[in-house]
């Protein structure tokens, strides 16, 4: 189980307070969707969850342990994928899998087994000897996904993973997310597509202006806001919690 308590992140360089107060709870074996408008702090929260960013204050615990205390062991158990993540272009998926597999301390047998399964599922096998840089956007994303999942993580964090992908690839990834859930994995998903959330997610967290404003069951979200649909509930939560920024001019 992942617990986030009063998480805050201020970037020192530009003094931007990206996350002000986020508290969420993600349970084992569920698909948790993180919703929020652009610039709400979803990506920063996801990056802190995946140990890529250090929180300014607050706490993230993974099965009761503070993730900042032993980041390397947390990294063994998680996978993080965004549509921004790239792999070295001059390598083939085969070489990339062998390299990252070894960095994840996997045995050659484990690497081969997981590689075969993932490459077959995402249709990479026939391209596994071709350079990554020669792939289409969709194929690159599928390869990145396969490499991220190679070490068989317990928790998978997806930050808008289907952005810019065609409908077929989107469906393939969605199906895989469901499969991961069936295998008992925990999936944290950040997306703008509310339809995807209602179809896949068990629970949802909403962030507005760097603050968490809702955390609960997807089915409960509309009811809790006294509206009929998830869309309406999201808009209502946004309108109630969004504070217009005053434009300060010198």
């Amino acid at each position, binding site marked *: 189980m992942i617990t986030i308590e009063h998480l805050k992140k201020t970037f020192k360089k530009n003094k931007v307070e990206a996350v002000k107060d986020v508290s969420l709870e993600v349970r084992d074996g569920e698909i948790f969707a993180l919703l929020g408008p652009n610039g709400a702090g979803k990506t920063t929260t996801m990056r802190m969850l995946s140990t*890529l960013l250090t929180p300014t204050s607050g706490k993230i615990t993974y099965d009761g342990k503070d993730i900042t205390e032993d980041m390397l062991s947390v990294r063994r158990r998680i996978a993080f994928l965004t549509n921004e993540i790239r792999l070295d272009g001059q390598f083939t998926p085969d070489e990339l899998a062998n*390299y990252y597999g070894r960095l994840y301390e996997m045995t050659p047998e484990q690497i081969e087994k997981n590689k075969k399964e993932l490459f077959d599922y995402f249709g990479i096998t026939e391209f596994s000897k071709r350079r990554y840089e020669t792939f289409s956007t969709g194929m690159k994303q599928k390869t990145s996904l396969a490499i991220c999942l190679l070490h068989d993580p317990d928790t998978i964090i997806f930050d808008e993973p289907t952005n810019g992908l065609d409908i077929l690839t989107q469906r393939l990834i969605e199906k895989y997310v469901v499969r991961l859930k069936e295998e008992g994995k925990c999936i944290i998903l950040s997306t703008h597509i509310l339809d995807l959330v209602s179809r896949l997610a068990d629970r949802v967290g909403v962030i507005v202006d760097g603050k968490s404003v809702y955390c609960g069951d997807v089915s409960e979200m509309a009811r809790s806001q006294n509206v009929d649909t998830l869309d309406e509930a999201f808009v209502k939560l946004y309108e109630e919690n969004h504070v217009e920024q005053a434009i300060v001019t010198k």
Partner: protein
Amino acid sequence: MTNNPVLHVMQNEWRKTSKTKSQLLLLILTPLVTILFISWGLDYVLSQTSTYKAVVYFQNEEQMHSAEKVLASYPMISGTMTGDPVKDVQEGEVDCAILVQDDQLLLYYDSALLSSSQCMKDAADCADALAFAFEGDEIYEAMLDFLPEREMVDLSTKEDVLDSFLDKMTGLIGMLIFLTMASNALSLSASSVTGEKERHTFDTLVLCPASLRKVLLGKTLVLMTEIFMSGLVGILTAILAMRIWNPEQFRTIRELNQGNCFWVVLLLLLLLSATLVTAAVFTTIASAFSQTKKASLFSSAGMIVISISSMVPTFTKNETVKYFPVANWSLAIKSICKGSHDLSAVGTGFLISVLIFALGIIISSALWERTNE
């Protein structure tokens, strides 16, 4: 299979370099072409400054006949009754022209074109002798009697000649070897360290359960191998160039080091010291620039470091320079060439460079980690 992340990163980095054939080729070609070309150029310039063409222009046969004796004492200066001295000098056909007229001697030269100071000196001496000659045979003969016989004795030893040669060569060629190493380090570290951020491959690497320090160490060790290769090609090319264009000095150096292969150890130790320092400095700068995600900015900063480090030994006259890696580069090469095998200086330089390297890795990994703050 061993599960050492440093080794995995090293294997991967090396594979990356070997896949980029142009980079590998540049690594070898840059020192090879640069040092061969500059060595040839230096030899050409030196040969140009030691030879010259000076001509005495006479107006008639009588003058020319009277000057025969004088010209015989100056074998490098020839006489002629044709041609325009001013035009010949301006067009660079002649370095110095002495025009003999009825009542005066004119010496023409073009300071913008003249490359040999010896030419001016000899032409002035010849003009003086001609002046005496045309005052009348008697006076000239009397002058010759009066002047004591002149003989030039070169007091330089083989070692002195070598010393002077090494002064000219090690400064420039030695520094050039270092500069090619540094410029290769610049492009390689920009790609392997700063480039990780630019290519968006950094996050995937950070997410692995291997400490960033180990990842960076693996990358820097491969960078070191590449810089070392480049330096070794540079040194071998310099040896080859010396054998081709300066066979006499090459022979002297070989004689001075005959029967003792310790110079090889010293040279490799010196190369390793320069490699360690260069790798540490460039990895640190590359890590600092990872935050800005700008490999192009890193190149400018790297060029400043290259320029400063290549100029340090020139301005440092202190004896202790010989113990500092990179700053002792030219001095040590010169001393190895002269057969002086001073292990204390090169050895101390090596130990200091190991410390600089360790410090560089610690600072670099701290800077790299800061990119996530």
